[in-house]
């Protein structure tokens, strides 16, 4: 179950909102949040909910233990325990395959399992909690109910953002919802839904058609169309989900951090990673890069650390070599920027750098990320480089069919993010506009129209999962 699913919108969400808001006592609200969240997760992943419960109990107990006993091995023990399900469900089969274990062998079939939804997100949240307690930045919570409500909180449970307990625990300790927050939440939620249903899904149809082509059928035009469509799809899909999560959080009085800040407006890869999936970048910075030595090591050591972090970032997204290479590809560009320009690489002043450097590099990166295999990624990238063959500019039938007038229109609207000159997310902008009287009614009209559009699409559409649901 995801947020754009009609079952969530018109059955689960009304029940959740009416139940949670009707309860004024904090304890009862926490109970209802936890039960609803577990129900939400159960109907997404079934009995794999046990992985969430395991992670919840281990990190809760671990927090209390680590607070008293700060020896490293104690922390390591609990971290290993927390990581175990993630390693098994997400990476064991990949590692086995890389060592040549056939998928139809006894070991292969034992390791080839369904991935629990959002396991990468809640595992990272639990790790952050444990490490923060260990570092003394956060007191271990003695209330399993409160901590459980946080870790299982459905708005951020399966696709982030990666919310750290130290940033939100106060919101779980008392009721912080208000009419203002709720209104902002509604606007943000609807905005996120529109991003997903109108732009991401339309672009996704074109991207799917392009990436579904057989190797020989990928023309120059189709490869670029696919790369562009996926560039738009993944941004609107994931940032749309984050907008919805932030909006839902606000409705329930929980303030989540921003996860995107106009990433395609960046002018270097270094800057891109400060604007894209911010909660993940911050997590890797605080819990991997800095413990490895951060910037305070030798130049060579910093480079090695950066590549390690980006390899980890890549493989966090999925157990496949395409993700690893994608991470290393980004790491290599960051290293190059550091080597050539030092810290000034973070913000080139010229606008053209974006179009001549940042966007092509990111788009090629998305091709590697989206491809089913390194071979397909290679074929795509080669096709993107050959504009002069006889069929380079022809569009295969499958793409032609997917590129309906509506999809093209939505893709073009989505492309406006490539030309945007502000780093303020539209969702944040809309919340700000709410404060003026005229602005309020404009946002009201936008939201009302958005609700009508969402009804039409969500009620009449087939189910379309979020991309980050799988990570």
């Amino acid at each position, binding site marked *: 179950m995801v947020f754009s*699913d009609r079952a969530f919108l018109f059955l689960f969400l009304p029940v959740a909102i009416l139940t949670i808001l009707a309860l004024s006592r904090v304890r009862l609200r926490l109970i209802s949040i936890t039960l609803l969240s577990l129900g939400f997760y159960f109907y997404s992943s079934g009995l794999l909910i046990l992985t969430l419960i395991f992670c919840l109990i281990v990190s809760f107990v671990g927090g209390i233990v680590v607070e008293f006993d700060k020896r490293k091995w104690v922390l390591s023990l609990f971290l290993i325990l927390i990581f175990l399900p993630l390693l098994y469900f997400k990476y064991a089969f990949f590692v086995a395959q890389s060592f040549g274990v056939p998928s139809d062998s006894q070991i292969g079939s034992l390791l080839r399992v369904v991935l629990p939804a959002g396991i990468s997100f809640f595992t990272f949240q639990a790790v952050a909690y444990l490490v923060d307690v260990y570092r003394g930045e956060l007191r271990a919570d003695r209330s399993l109910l409160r901590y459980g409500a946080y870790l299982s909180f459905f708005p951020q449970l399966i696709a982030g953002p990666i919310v750290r307990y130290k940033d939100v625990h106060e919101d779980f300790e008392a009721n912080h919802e208000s009419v203002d927050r709720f209104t902002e939440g509604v606007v943000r939620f*609807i905005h996120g839904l529109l991003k997903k249903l109108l732009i991401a899904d339309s672009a996704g149809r074109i991207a799917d058609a392009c990436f579904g082509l057989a190797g020989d059928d990928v023309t120059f035009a189709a490869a670029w169309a696919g790369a562009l469509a996926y560039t738009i799809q993944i941004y609107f899909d994931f940032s749309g989900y984050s907008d919805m999560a932030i909006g839902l959080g606000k409705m329930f009085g929980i303030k989540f951090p921003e996860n995107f800040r106009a990433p395609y407006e960046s002018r270097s890869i270094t800057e891109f990673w400060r604007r894209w999936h911010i909660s993940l970048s911050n997590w890797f910075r605080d819990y991997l890069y800095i413990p490895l030595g951060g910037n305070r090591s030798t130049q060579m050591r910093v480079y090695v650390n950066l590549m390690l972090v980006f390899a980890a970032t890549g493989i966090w997204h999925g157990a496949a070599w395409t993700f690893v290479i994608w991470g290393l590809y980004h790491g290599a560009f960051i290293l190059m920027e550091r080597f050539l320009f030092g810290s000034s690489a973070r913000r080139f002043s010229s606008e053209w750098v974006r179009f001549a450097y940042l966007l092509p590099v990111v788009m090629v990166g998305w091709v590697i990320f989206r491809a089913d295999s390194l071979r397909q990624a290679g074929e795509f990238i080669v096709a993107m480089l050959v504009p002069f063959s006889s069929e380079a500019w022809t569009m295969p039938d499958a793409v032609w*069919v997917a590129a*309906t007038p509506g999809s093209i229109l939505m893709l073009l609207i989505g492309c406006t993010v490539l030309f945007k000159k502000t780093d303020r997310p539209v969702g944040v902008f809309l919340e700000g506009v709410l404060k003026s*009287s005229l602005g309020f009614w404009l946002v009201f009209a936008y939201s009302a129209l958005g609700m009508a559009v969402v009804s039409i699409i969500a009620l*009449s559409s087939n189910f379309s999962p979020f991309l980050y649901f799988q990570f």
Partner: protein
Amino acid sequence: MMPRTILISLFVMWLVAPVAALFVFDRNEYLGNRAVPSIENALGEFQSFELSAFSRLSDAVLDRSIVTSRAITVRNSISFYLLRHVDTPDLISGSDGWLYYKPQFTFPNCEAGSYDRSFIIAANAAAVYEAMADTVDMSVYYSVSPNKSRVQSEGVDRRVNYYAGCHFQNVEVLQGVFEDRLPSLIDHGRVMLGGDGSGEQFYFRNNTHWNLLGYTLAMIQMKSVIEEGGDPIVNGNILLSDSFDENRLMSTTQSMLSISHYERGPVPASDPFFDDESRWPIAYEGSALVVHDSFYAFYPFTGTVFGDQADIVFQNVPSQRSRIIPALSRSPNLVVFNSVERSMIRRFSGDWGAHGDFFGPVLGRVQERARSDCAFDAPTRVPMSALSSGVTLDERDLVVSRSDGELRLNLPVSDQPVCLRLDFNAPSAFRIRFILPPLQGQSNVPRFEIGRYFEVEAASGHNDIRLLLPRSLGYPQLRIRLAAEQGDVLSNFEVYTATLH
């Protein structure tokens, strides 16, 4: 009320609207041509904590809501009228506003010969049914309402072609297979595409069905075939000058953009062409059974065309469908099986052919007539030989060593139905498959071919199976396959033929 409260109220109303509508407005029991699952069943499953239960509950509740059906219509209308393009799981728009129902592209696979086997089996099954029914004076006609994309191909553009795949090429193969094996098939597309009327519009642009002109032409063809034994000479001018006007031909009231592709609309309740009693009903003797689908149901004149003595069954309606076998058991003189092209293979291979349930009453009548009309008191023993090592003839016993063992029977050549009697004792029940040689009219077909058979149940103990085989056997040999248990001995096995009284 504070403006922000208004927005919150609107949001909450929006969330609850689809469910609230269930208590205020009529509920959808069907969405398109799919029945909406029951809420009670979905609730039962929900309580059982099945993983997909919430999704099924949501389907049961939300598909039942009028908000959902309106959302589908609005979305499709915006796509079609504003964006000039529709591509849903069911529909694809072609050029110039033509809409096509996607399931009509039944044979998209481009691998050579992908569908040949299923085409041959279907054609042969229908031919055997028709021939066997003929032995008991039951005239069976198969009619096919062509897919819109075949008749109105002007709207088939690159997008439609993409979904069609190799469908159109495979349909040409299908037509060849049926021309060779079931030449009596009434293909309504023949008169639409072949005569002077070609170039006219026979189907609605935005409905999968034919318009009144298409329907009328089909009924004229049906009348011509039944009364005169062949297709009519199409004269489009006569048709058009008779009773048709442009507005009625172009009616788009039955829009595919609505959720139901065959929802009822203001189709004419009467029509001068069909009100003409000198023209209708079709002349035939005795009673009739007409089994049809939505194309014949689209206009209310099918009853007029076949008259009061016809039992007319719209097979898509389950309650009507259950009338078919009882009606066949009453031995109608004329049987018409009508199908839309996209379903014909499934139906001919299934219920409608000699392998399906609808063959039961015909076989019963064949056996009954064989008992009463064949002179088995003066039988002639039929020469037979084992066709494979699966059976062994040993004096008067027949030993089955494989369940696909076959015998070859040499029949007398006759222009009358052939009486056949199998007399034997069996240790257990099994099925006997009678594999027929080519039938008259079948050309370019092998001597024995897949699908050209019917089956009879043999019981444990003594069997005295009496049959009439078609007068139209084009070759004096018959094969029978004895699907008995390995090692079974069919004792006192004799096969006789006889003349009709």
